[in-house]
């Protein structure tokens, strides 16, 4: 039931080089870019490398640059474009083949972030924890992250030469925000933010927020509050002192 044909241009190649290759794909109603790519794979290019899993915008596997814009292929209807669409791999990561990039750097970064750590008291109680919905709601937004790394792809700091050695990138600011604002976490990750995580490198261009398929307000809700918190700790010794005298409780997000 092809309504029309699509000229699907996919970047084919590896680290050594490559080119855009055109595939004529019959379009069906409601088709998304991933369907078109997989159709081309099954019928015309069996060795075309592409990642996908859920086909439901839930796993963050199918990230690519569609008409130059970082998107999930499984969530992008063909109908949003005309009769041709160009798909390229993410540019911020080393290419493996075709649409598949080496995103292992992200997994390495994640390892460097100290994990969720409840207080001794919470750890030792045998009672189930109590938390309030409003406190849960605050971290829920960050925990929606599907690790598609599209925000990492678009962040100019990471795209720059050497950028990855300076800054963990927006995905991991979201991760750190989720930990810092978790009602039961007891660690202070401000030294990390100031140091290796390189939060100072972010100049709040908000490009990351624009591409997030989960609509996480990365800049407004994660990065800016983290910056305020970090600045508090480092540049306002008086407030930091007051906080310490005030019972050592970790300040929660604004």
């Amino acid at each position, binding site marked *: 039931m092809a309504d029309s044909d699509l000229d699907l241009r996919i970047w084919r190649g*590896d680290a050594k080089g490559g080119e855009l290759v055109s595939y004529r794909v019959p379009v069906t109603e*409601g088709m998304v870019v991933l369907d078109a790519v997989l159709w081309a794979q099954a019928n015309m290019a069996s*060795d075309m490398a592409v990642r996908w899993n859920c086909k439901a915008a839930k796993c963050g596997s199918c990230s690519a640059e569609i008409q130059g814009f970082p998107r999930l292929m499984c969530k992008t209807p063909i109908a949003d474009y005309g009769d041709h669409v160009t798909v390229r791999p993410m540019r911020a990561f080393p290419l493996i083949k075709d649409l598949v990039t080496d995103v292992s750097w992200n997994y390495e970064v994640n390892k460097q972030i100290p994990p969720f750590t409840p207080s001794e008291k919470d750890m030792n109680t045998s009672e189930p924890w109590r938390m309030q919905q409003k406190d849960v709601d605050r971290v829920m937004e960050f*925990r929606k992250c599907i690790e598609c790394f599209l925000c990492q792809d678009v962040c100019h700091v990471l795209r720059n030469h050497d950028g990855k050695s300076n800054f963990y990138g927006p995905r991991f600011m979201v991760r750190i925000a989720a930990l810092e604002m978790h009602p039961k976490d007891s660690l202070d990750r401000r030294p990390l933010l100031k140091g290796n995580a390189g939060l100072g490198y972010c100049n709040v261009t908000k490009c990351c927020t624009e591409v997030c398929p989960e609509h996480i307000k990365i800049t407004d809700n994660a990065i800016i509050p983290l910056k305020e918190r970090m600045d508090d700790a480092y540049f306002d010794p008086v407030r930091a002192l007051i906080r310490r005298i005030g019972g050592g409780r970790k300040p929660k997000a604004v």
Partner: protein
Amino acid sequence: MGLVSAAAYETVETDVLVMGAGGAGLRGAIAAAEAGARVLIVCKSLLGKAHTVMAEGGVAAAMHNVAYQDSWEVHFADTMKGGKLINNWHMAELHAKESPERVLELERWGAVFDRTWQGRIHQRPFGAHTYPRLAHIGDRTGLELIRTLQDRVVHTTGVEVHMEVTVFALLKSEGRVGGALAYRRADGSLVLYRFGALLLATGGAGKMYRVTSNSWESTGDGTALAYEAGAQLRDMEMVQFHPTGMVWPVGVRGLLVTEGVRGEGGLLRNKDGQRFMERYDPDRMELSSRDVVARAINSEVEAGRGTPHGGAYLDITHRSPEFIKRKLPSMYEQFLKLAKVDITKQPMEVAPTIHYQMGGVRVDAETAASSVAGLYAAGEVASGLHGGNRLGGNSLSDLLVFGKRAGDAAAASAKKNPKAAAAGIDPAEIEHAIATLMAPLDRPEGENPYRLMAEIQDVMTEHAPIVRDEAGLAAGLEKLDGLRARAEVCGTGGGQSLAFNPGWHTAHDLRSLLVNAEALLRSALVRKESRGAHARSDFPKTDDQLASVNFVVEKTAGGMQVRPEPRPPMPEYLADAVQRSYALYTPEEME
């Protein structure tokens, strides 16, 4: 033998090898590492992408935070009745008793759940659970579970992860599995893993069907590898059609619509606006078990009362838009984006989609050990807990409860067999396995594996649908024979490269699918009754005699054999628990 010589593999040793990085694999890896074993996880995709993220509704655990009357006994009874009594009752008992502890433990590892007003974990109602029982966070509980376990794994010493690696053969020595051959997807290089024990956590085989909620990964690798290694499979006729998949537009057909919609009050109607569940299960209505709802929708469509695209309407518009967006955010987004339907204003159109395999590797209830020494299985790849039909929410709790048990047992087994990793594996076997894997690359003229996969899906869709019959199943088996012969000599679809070549990978996946498909058809043929997810038009009634029988599948010299196996009766205290709760079968099944 073509491109790679048999010697060209790297050998990696570990105590416990875990295959699969979904909930069961990750929970098992944590348990095994905490028990002191060196653990290696191999997964076909990237870490954190496993099918568990698709679980939306929640995790079932009788914590009685919302309904104080709930208890493990009631959860047990619900599970047994939902599974139409062919569940392994000991697994169902352990599951009901241990899941609250596993959920609370997850919270202590950083998982975040929705709360009651007093600050306890909130629990939502779900199909065929007597009380509100599913701990959840919005409609993305699976992602929360995966992310929490993933972070735990990353920070557990002694666990390593090899991503985008596919195991293609298991190797035994002296009756015990001790080796696994795998290829790295990125460059086609080969690895021989040697281990003391293997934990299969590979999920299901939804790719047998055309319309499925499953990903490319769900090709039933674990079931097939276990079978080839001589392990028994069980209940293979039982596959679950999730009643509510999207039907329209065509591009998203099969995409899951969470049962949470019905849990939050969603109503099912046919094209005449009638709440047809009245006729199928008047007591539980929309919240009946999945097998019943899926068959009901199927029957409505067959009777000409379906929606324009061949499904039923699922309507939640009587709830406020704020409520819908808060409780079902990803459903709201999914329909708006992919179907241009605003579910706060319009009903959804839904139809059954293949979702879950209740059958799988036969395991011991307490240890998750298969019938082959050194081989363990947990999660969807294992069988027993869900019997003839799985209740929503019982899958996430299954992963946690039996993932942990399997990890513990695999670690203990590896410790007892420290030499296993080094024991003799027949080099000829290794060579043969590698040759088979590589062969499609040497057949440039061979058939396209994607086309063969589509044909397998067509056969299963046509011959093993929701309602089956003898002639159809037998004809399906015959077609599978033809497909198997063609798959054995298929190519890669063109590309000859070892580098990230999905055509080549698919050629291998066909072998797993074929084992699963054959086991399904053969088991469905011999269960001459309708029970749970298995409905036969030629045997429409449930046969009480068969309530105490499971069908076991085994590899023999003469090919695949299926035989009935009686199950020991439930001890009195468990039988009482089942008796105490209400009707066992729906009016439809009693007729």
